């Protein structure tokens, strides 16, 4: 299993590569590329929030509680007085950062379903819905941010699987196969968890933004042509443009 710093470095690099590619393909603009990079890096730290003593759980819950606090301030800014808003912000932040984290620690198990592909997709779809419905961003940018979140998350899972191979002793560690998985069916609790996770995923997909724009801009023949256009210097001259 890779440590926090390795996940951070690899996640940031992978996010920089993808956001830079989307920027070059003119799918996104520079400020959006910065946001995409940040979300990809954040996503690459998220799988370890199921580990009670990892740095990720602290960072993840701090970011989520700050985000929810900011959202609640946005919603109530036109009706609440300053004192009401400060009190509400304090209660919202504390209850998530210090209250919810305890409950989450009790129910989550490291290398449980948080290390799985459907959960990576759930994080992505939630990102798309929040960006589209809460912040009013268009469907393309919402899905680009979703793609970055899931991309960072899956890079983390792949890295964990790579680290489960011990090259020096030439053996596969016990942790192999526990990160990059679609389901876990060891116990009846695992089975129920799987059903819930897939039900949540499909429910979120139903209410998610339209995917036409992301399909055309990133996953189409036209997008592939754009990618091949920009892969090499079109006039054969390197660096002197």
């Amino acid at each position, binding site marked *: 299993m890779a440590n926090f710093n390795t996940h951070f470095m690899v996640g940031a690099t992978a996010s920089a590569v993808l956001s830079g590619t989307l920027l070059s393909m*003119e799918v996104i603009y520079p*400020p959006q590329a*910065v*946001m995409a990079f*940040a*979300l990809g890096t*954040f996503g690459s730290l998220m799988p370890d929030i199921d580990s009670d003593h990892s*740095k990720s759980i*602290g*960072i993840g819950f*701090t*970011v989520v509680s*700050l*985000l929810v606090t*900011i*959202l609640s301030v*946005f*919603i109530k800014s*036109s009706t609440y007085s300053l004192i009401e808003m400060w009190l509400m912000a304090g209660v919202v932040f504390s209850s998530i950062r210090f209250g919810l984290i305890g409950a989450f620690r009790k129910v989550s198990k490291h290398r449980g379903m948080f290390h799985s592909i459907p959960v990576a997709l759930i994080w992505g779809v939630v990102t798309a819905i929040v*960006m*589209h*419905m*809460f*912040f*009013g*961003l*268009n*469907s*393309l*940018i919402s899905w680009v*941010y979703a793609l970055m979140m899931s991309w960072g998350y899956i890079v983390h899972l792949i890295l964990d699987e790579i680290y489960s191979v011990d090259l020096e002793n030439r053996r596969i560690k016990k942790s192999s196969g526990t990160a990059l998985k679609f389901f876990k069916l060891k116990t009846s609790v695992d089975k129920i968890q799987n059903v819930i996770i897939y039900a949540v995923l499909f429910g979120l997909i139903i209410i998610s*933004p*339209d995917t*036409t*724009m992301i399909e*055309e801009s990133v996953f189409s023949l*036209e997008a592939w*042509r*754009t990618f091949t*256009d*920009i892969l090499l210097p*079109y006039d054969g001259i390197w660096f002197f443009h």
Partner: protein
Amino acid sequence: MNSIFKYMGAVGISALFVGCVPAQGPSPSIKTPTLGTPIGIAEYGYPPQSYQNKIKNYFSNKIKRADRANYVFSKPQKAYKRKGLAYGGDVDWKGWLVDVDVSIPSRTGRMQKSKPYMVLFKDSVIVEEILGRTHKLITKVK
């Protein structure tokens, strides 16, 4: 010290989340309905005048290689838009919407497939443009 960096990082990431708030467009001048104004017009205003030229001028500063862009316009239709749920979700715009397909050449000169935009008008003034043919916060009125 570590925890200070951790919290600074968390605040930074949250600030980036907040940074995705869409920019406010120019506020349209709102005509006051009089006694004789039909209800539909009082709500949505009059259909935009010379909207094709206005859209071309608007995009000339918004997109790259706009001088070589091709436009396909649809007819204006009534629509309204809600604010994002983070801002309360109230209706913040009612007016006329024009669907436009804009195709521009890539940076290598190849003409690309057109992109759909929804251009929002209020009293013949462009309020905002939104990439895509649909948005969950926009309702087109038939």
